């Protein structure tokens, strides 16, 4: 909202105040000022000129060739097209080089052969009014060469207020409210607003029916005879409106706007002679009723909307916008001026539903002071007498219904207030500014420990309702910027630490630090297509009612899909990568609130390797990563199974490859036996195609952080003292049918090694013609060690024999190494 300081200055003396200082004061004490501009600044180069000669243009009937003096040396020749240009006239002159408000830079020009060295301006060209009938005529005593803004006293510092910081202040939606604030801040008197003292004796007889008293509890209608048709407003009024960005139209409309901008109370002028009846009904709209507002749009209404109707139908959308049919126009001779109290919430709903935010609706929705309804008419009547002396109030306004701000008496305890604010203030320092804002104060008793404070009507509608609201008033007027920081002194205990967060943090560090992954953050929403991709019904997801993007309305169950969405763009420049995220996932639960899970998920991609399984493969890498993180939990004991989780498992992996996947469950020895902890897998082949990821190897894993935390909380790895006796390293290679899975082989070798086998490491997988069809060789480094003696060659032989037997049991044999 724009606030003109010249306007505010009519009610509180700001003559000695620098505008930037005023802006700062308001920001510090009242509401955020976002900008300060001086209205008229764009006319800096326009000066008062005098037409010293004026003759007809030899080539054009409608043009004159003049000489203009403008205080800078020689007079210049200027061609002018205005009918009212004449010798001796004082004019607004823009010399060559001037940039006009529209952005046009004046150049030396030839008009039909005659040189023109500048422009004599109309008010419209200077954006001073809509008047383009002719050039602006200045008073004869105007001083030639003086900047126009000085001559017209145009310069007006205008503040731009952040509307959001005013939402709770119905009193600050007009200039007078800001004058009141500044008077209190600067400790200066606030001049009363001049209003019409007495209404005519006769009461308006235009009937007003309030059929929806909740929607409109109070309505005033003031009938006015204009004494002629509307005409342009006087310059001072136009200037006020222009300064705050309002286009002047005609005196009657301008006056309603002026009152709105000054007091914050919207009024509406109906053309009385176009009101059927004439009568006024304020009622709820009929469902589906159509009303054409004065912007020419037909509006389809709902039952909660409020309508102003005359004898024959709707004429205005109450509190939002008038109707076209009864609008004040060029031929209007009599008006009915409406000023009313409307229900804030209903106005807001209507304006929001119709996406029709107006100066009126944005004020009514703030819970305006009901007393403003009549004050606005009084102010209008006062100004009307000045602006349009020929106009006549036909009667005192008809006042129907009743509305008043609640009476609020609150309590202010200076000592408590001081302590809360951290500002050492005396009671007197608190009361004075409150009084300046219109609060009435009275000591509660002789001890003066507490005061009764009566809230003025313009603050009582919803802004100031509790004792704490007075603390705010006191604090902001004293100046929050004066508060000094003080550390809170209170007993401190080591705060509770969320074990799930702790684990998440450790795993993130491990992934980024040891495994060189990048922590990512992915969106929580998924496109509906994901339901199909994952073979899940839409009901398996929590869904958004009003998604940001049409169709992107699924809340992710786990981070994998949204991490996968980040892969294709990365592939353009990165042939490999590892992204992980610790994220919350949701799925419909028993109640309305979806069930929440905390996951740790990762996606890795790389060019396809020669083998799809084994240590060199993406699949193998995901397994190692998963098991490393489990060990960090720290967990040393688990069951790993091939394939997808079962339906009963709390972790589902619909994105996982059905046969290239592994699940980890807690060991049967733990308290939570068989609980699923993690899945690692390659990407499901169908998804691979859907996401155009066929040409890379994409691996995934997902850990259930809560399950892991429950299992491992408080656990630490156990130290084992390294054996003192030397180890024997034996390499063995087994040639076995490929149908024998690795884990069978490993199991057999471990059995063969027994207690002595300290470590077993696969180091080569080989398949080739030399071995025969369907045979593969697995080669291991085995480390044998005893805790009680140095092992001998005999022990090695014994081991090899057992390995050989095992190999034979598995249908193969021990190869020589």
């Amino acid at each position, binding site marked *: 909202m724009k606030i003109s300081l010249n306007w505010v200055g009519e009610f509180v003396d700001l003559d000695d105040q620098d505008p930037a200082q005023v802006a700062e004061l308001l*920001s*510090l*004490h009242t509401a955020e000022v976002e900008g300060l501009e001086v209205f008229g600044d764009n006319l800096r180069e326009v000066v008062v000129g005098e037409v010293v000669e004026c003759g007809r243009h030899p080539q054009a009937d409608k043009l004159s060739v003049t000489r203009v003096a403008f205080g800078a040396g020689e007079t210049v020749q200027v061609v002018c097209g205005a009918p009212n240009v004449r010798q001796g006239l004082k004019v607004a002159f823009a010399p060559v080089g001037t940039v006009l408000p529209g952005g046009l830079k004046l150049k030396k020009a030839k008009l039909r052969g005659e040189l023109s060295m500048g422009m004599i301006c109309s008010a419209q060209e200077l954006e001073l009014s809509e008047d383009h009938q002719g050039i602006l005529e200045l008073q004869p005593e105007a001083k030639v060469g003086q900047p126009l803004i000085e001559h017209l006293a145009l310069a007006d510092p205008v503040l731009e207020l952040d509307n959001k*910081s*005013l939402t709770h202040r119905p009193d600050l939606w007009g200039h007078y409210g800001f004058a009141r604030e500044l008077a209190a801040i600067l400790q200066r008197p606030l001049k009363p607003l001049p209003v019409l003292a007495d209404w005519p004796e006769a009461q308006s007889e235009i009937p007003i029916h309030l059929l929806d008293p909740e929607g409109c509890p109070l309505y005033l209608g003031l009938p006015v005879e204009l004494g002629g048709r509307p005409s342009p407003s006087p310059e001072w009024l136009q200037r006020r409106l222009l300064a705050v960005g309002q286009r002047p139209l005609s005196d009657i409309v301008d006056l309603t706007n002026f009152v709105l901008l000054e007091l914050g109370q919207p009024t509406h002028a109906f053309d009385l002679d176009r009101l059927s009846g004439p009568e006024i009904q304020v009622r709820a709209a009929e469902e589906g009723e159509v009303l054409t507002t004065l912007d020419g749009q037909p509006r389809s209404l709902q039952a909660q909307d409020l309508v102003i109707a005359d004898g024959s139908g709707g004429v205005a959308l109450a509190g939002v916008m008038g109707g076209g049919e009864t609008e004040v126009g060029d031929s209007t001779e009599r008006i009915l001026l409406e000023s009313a109290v409307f229900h804030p*919430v209903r106005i807001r709903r209507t304006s*929001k539903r119709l996406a029709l935010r107006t100066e009126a609706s944005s004020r009514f929705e703030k819970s305006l002071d009901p007393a403003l309804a009549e004050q606005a008419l009084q102010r209008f009547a006062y100004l009307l007498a000045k602006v349009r002396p020929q106009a006549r109030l036909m009667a005192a306004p008809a006042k129907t219904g009743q509305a008043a701000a609640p009476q609020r008496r609150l309590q202010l305890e200076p000592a408590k207030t001081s*302590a*809360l*604010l*951290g500002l050492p203030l005396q009671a007197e320092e608190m009361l004075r500014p409150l009084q300046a804002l219109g609060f009435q104060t009275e000591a509660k008793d002789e001890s003066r420990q507490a005061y009764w404070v009566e809230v003025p009507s313009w603050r009582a509608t919803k802004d100031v309702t*509790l004792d*704490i*609201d007075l*603390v*705010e008033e006191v604090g*902001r007027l004293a100046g*929050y*910027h004066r*508060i000094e*920081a*003080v550390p*809170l002194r209170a007993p*401190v*205990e080591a*705060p*509770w*630490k*969320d074990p799930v*967060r702790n684990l998440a943090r450790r795993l*993130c560090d491990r*992934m*980024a630090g040891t495994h*060189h992954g*990048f*922590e990512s*953050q*992915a*969106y*929580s*929403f998924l496109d509906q297509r994901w339901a199909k991709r994952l073979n899940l019904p839409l*009901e398996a997801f*929590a*869904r*958004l*009612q*009003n*998604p*940001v993007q049409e169709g992107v309305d699924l*809340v992710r169950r786990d981070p994998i899909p949204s*991490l996968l969405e*980040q892969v294709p*763009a*990365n592939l353009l420049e990165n042939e490999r990568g590892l*992204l992980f995220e610790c994220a919350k996932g949701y799925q*419909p639960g028993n109640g*309305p*609130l*979806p069930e*929440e899970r905390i996951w740790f998920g990762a996606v890795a991609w790389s060019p396809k390797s020669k083998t799809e399984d084994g240590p060199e493969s993406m699949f193998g890498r995901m397994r190692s990563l998963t098991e490393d993180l489990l060990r960090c939990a720290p967990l040393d004991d688990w069951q790993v199974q091939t394939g997808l989780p079962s339906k009963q498992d709390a972790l589902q992996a619909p994105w996982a490859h059905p046969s290239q996947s592994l699940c980890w469950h807690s060991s049967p020895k733990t308290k939570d036996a068989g609980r699923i902890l993690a899945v690692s897998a390659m990407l499901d082949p169908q998804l691979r195609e859907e996401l155009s990821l066929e040409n890379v190897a994409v691996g995934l894993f997902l850990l259930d952080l809560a399950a892991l935390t429950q299992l491992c909380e408080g656990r630490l790895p156990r130290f084992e003292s390294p054996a003192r006796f030397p180890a024997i390293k034996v390499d063995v290679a087994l040639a076995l049918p490929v149908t024998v899975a690795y884990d069978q082989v490993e199991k057999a070798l471990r059995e063969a090694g027994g207690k002595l086998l300290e470590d077993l490491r696969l180091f080569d997988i080989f398949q080739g013609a030399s071995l025969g069809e369907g045979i593969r060789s697995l080669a291991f480094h085995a480390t044998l060690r005893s805790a009680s003696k140095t092992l001998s060659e005999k022990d090695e032989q014994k081991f090899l024999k057992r390995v050989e037997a095992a190999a034979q049991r598995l249908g193969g044999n021990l190869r020589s190494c």
Partner: protein
Amino acid sequence: MRERLEELRREALAIVAEAGEEARLREVEVRFLGRNGEITGLLRQLGSLPADQRPAAGREANLVKAALQEALDQRRDQLQQASLARELRGEGFDPTLPGPPPPAGALHPLSQVQRRLEDLFSSMGFLVADGPEVEWESYNFDALNIPPDHPAREAQDTIFVRAPQATAEASAAAESDGKADGVVLRSHTSTVQIRALKKHGPPLRVVAPGRVFRQEAQDATHEHTFHQMEGLVVDRGVGVAHMLHAMNSLLEGLFGRKLETRLRPGFFPFVEPGFELDARCPFCDSGCRVCKGSTWIELMPGGLVHPNVLEACDVDPEVYSGYAFGLGLSRVVMLSYGIDDIRWLLSGDLRFLRQFPS
């Protein structure tokens, strides 16, 4: 034999004198003095000499052997010295060659900043809490003193979650009772005020970082998903000065030095009085793009917890008071690292993530 010995001696010494590297010396050693070396071979032939010549020949051969060994040792020594001298001179060593590509990996910049603040507040006795991102509408609004029909509740700001089929009927029934509670994606981390107060009760100090959501079109400065951090303290005798102290500490932790700050009025329904905290722009002295020339930047809203909020959490506002503040984590991350477009944060783009080694 003597001639042969002399021949070998000369030849060997000549090679030793010319040898440019130790390997060559080793060759000489093997060739002449090794088990099958030529001088060793001659010595072995001593037995075939007449007995009277043996001692002299033996002596000579041993002299030659010793001389050669000494020459070898000397030369080896020289070569080692020379090589050390070369190494010390840095000859043949290019210290400007690059190492292997460093292994990458990093935490997200949001996490890095968040952790810094979590640790700071932990050290001041705050617990770090976490609330659901999908939240009761009443926790997101009503309990925070944002009554129905408050502008902030409108769908244009808040993302609502559909009632699941099974409960749709139940909630429709509840709605007709006026007890309906919808579900939203939380629009601010202030919901944790309610969760934490209900769970832990006063006295309480908590910070709650997390994701929040708004129904908002994306552009360089707007996101529908972003991060905030809420701070809340409820205790006896808590006031604005304490809030200011916590805010100042936070900024110091964030920017690594004390910044001049000031409070001014701000309006948020869940606090009273409400504030905006401005800090002197940490990026300039006399006005820049970040502070729009004003030298102040608006960094954190906050305020004293509204009595209605305390009451909604069964805390007696006559006994306890508290403060709350909110930090736009995403914004602070952008400010700190000079990130020009908020959409980078959730892009998962490695070109972005790589720039913040942790």
